[in-house]
């Protein structure tokens, strides 16, 4: 039987808290940018301009077909060098920046699909009603469709945010010390990997489970 030794954890709390902050930072940035950029993509995709619509679809499909790990590595190892070739100057510690960019762009693809479904979930009759009142198509989108779409998809957006929160653990591949990365490094440093992994799992569970309970509450409220 394995001998558990939890003594590393108390001393590492400040480090772990720091890691959790980074995790939250990546998650929040990706949510905000992802939703804004995702909405633009979704509208482009549903819009009448065939070029924009194709481009948006291609973007979404590309990002959705590559593992997140690969995307993170791409934005860490490959893209910065391209940028450097163009701008010719130095890049410092880009781990956080590249993770933020990678997650935001990656999540936008997923959010745009949710938002597209949300827009499509608003009945055609609502659009007709908006237009019939004399709203322009833009006004109809803004005043009638989007508020309902966002309301319909809030639970889905939040669920995606929970998945995203979990996925941030993958930034370990570029050595960024998010919560999971920190836990892993502390475990590695002290030779207590198993304990730290179990601890990390428990923390993730508590956070994600509470969040998903919240989502269910919201869902129940919207269902009324």
């Amino acid at each position, binding site marked *: 039987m394995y001998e558990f030794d939890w003594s590393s954890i108390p001393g590492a709390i400040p*480090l772990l808290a720091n890691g959790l902050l980074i995790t939250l930072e990546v998650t929040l940035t990706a949510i905000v940018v992802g939703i804004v950029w995702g909405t633009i993509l979704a509208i482009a995709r549903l819009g009448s301009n065939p070029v924009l619509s194709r481009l948006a679809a291609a973007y979404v499909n590309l990002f959705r077909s590559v593992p997140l790990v690969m995307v993170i590595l791409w934005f860490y190892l490959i893209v910065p060098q391209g940028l450097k070739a163009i701008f010719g100057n130095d*890049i410092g510690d880009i781990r956080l920046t590249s993770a933020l960019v990678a997650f935001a762009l990656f999540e936008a693809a997923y959010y745009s699909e949710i938002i597209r479904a949300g827009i499509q979930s608003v009945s055609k009759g609502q659009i007709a009603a908006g237009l019939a009142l004399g709203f322009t198509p833009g006004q109809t989108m803004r005043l009638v469709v989007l508020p309902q779409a966002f309301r319909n998809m809030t639970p889905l957006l939040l669920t995606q945010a929970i998945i995203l929160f979990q996925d941030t653990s993958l930034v370990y591949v570029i050595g960024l010390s998010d919560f999971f990365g920190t836990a892993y490094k502390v475990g590695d440093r002290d030779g207590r990997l198993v304990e730290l992994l179990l601890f990390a799992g428990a923390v993730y569970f508590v956070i994600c489970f509470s969040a998903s309970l919240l989502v269910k509450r919201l869902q129940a409220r919207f269902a009324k």
Partner: protein
Amino acid sequence: AQESATLKKIKDTGSITLGHRESSIPFSYYDDKQQVIGYAYELQRKIVDAVKAELKLDKVDVKLMPVTSANRITLVQNGTVDIECGSTTNNTERQKQVAFSNTFFVIGTKLMVKKTSGIKDFPDLAGKNVVTTAGTTSERLLRRMNEEKQMKMNIISAKDHGESFLTLETGRAVAFMMDDALLYGEIAKAKRPADWEVVGTAQSKEAYGCMLRKDDAGFKKVVDAAIAQAQTSGEADKIYAKWFMNPIPPKGLNLNMPMSDEMKELHKAPNDRAYE
């Protein structure tokens, strides 16, 4: 001085970026306050001092950049870090991609085993599960040995040293092949250090060097000189004792790894030769 892109850049920007490892104990790693420490890191700071003197700068802004075994070469190549000192082996293959400074450490690749396992050397491994860390020279050696001598070992490539040791500790593998210095480091971290030992004839000697960009002789000269100076002046011996024969952070472990003959030789005659 010779024309050097790196030195010029350091002079222009007033800053240098150091690549370091996060958990290569005792070469380059974080203590519990997220400060970089270690044997290689101390030498790296000496190199910074030498660069400062060379460029006659009062102050150089030092930026720290943690690297992993997977990305370290790329980051040196693409200019993200100016010099990486950690536990990187200098070999001819890597020399095609980057340049290496004077050797600052010589290791031998050996085995860590449980004292009670009865395994004393590499031939005992035939038909057994053996773990090593992915992407290291040990992995290559082990695979090649397996191929050439038909040893029928099952080789597990773990993601990092910690995982390798865990694989050994949990009984998945009977031996962990790695650079001896790192093995001593892992033993120091173990729950029962007394259970483990390092055995076997060194399969290869490897020279650890700092990585620099290729074709920058001016910078390399400054770096080489700094390392040689430390080694011949006896300063490096003191640093060695500090990191290998005394308790080190974060948990006050003592590696108890006496200086090898190769190291003594190196300190007498500094060089940048690769063993392979």
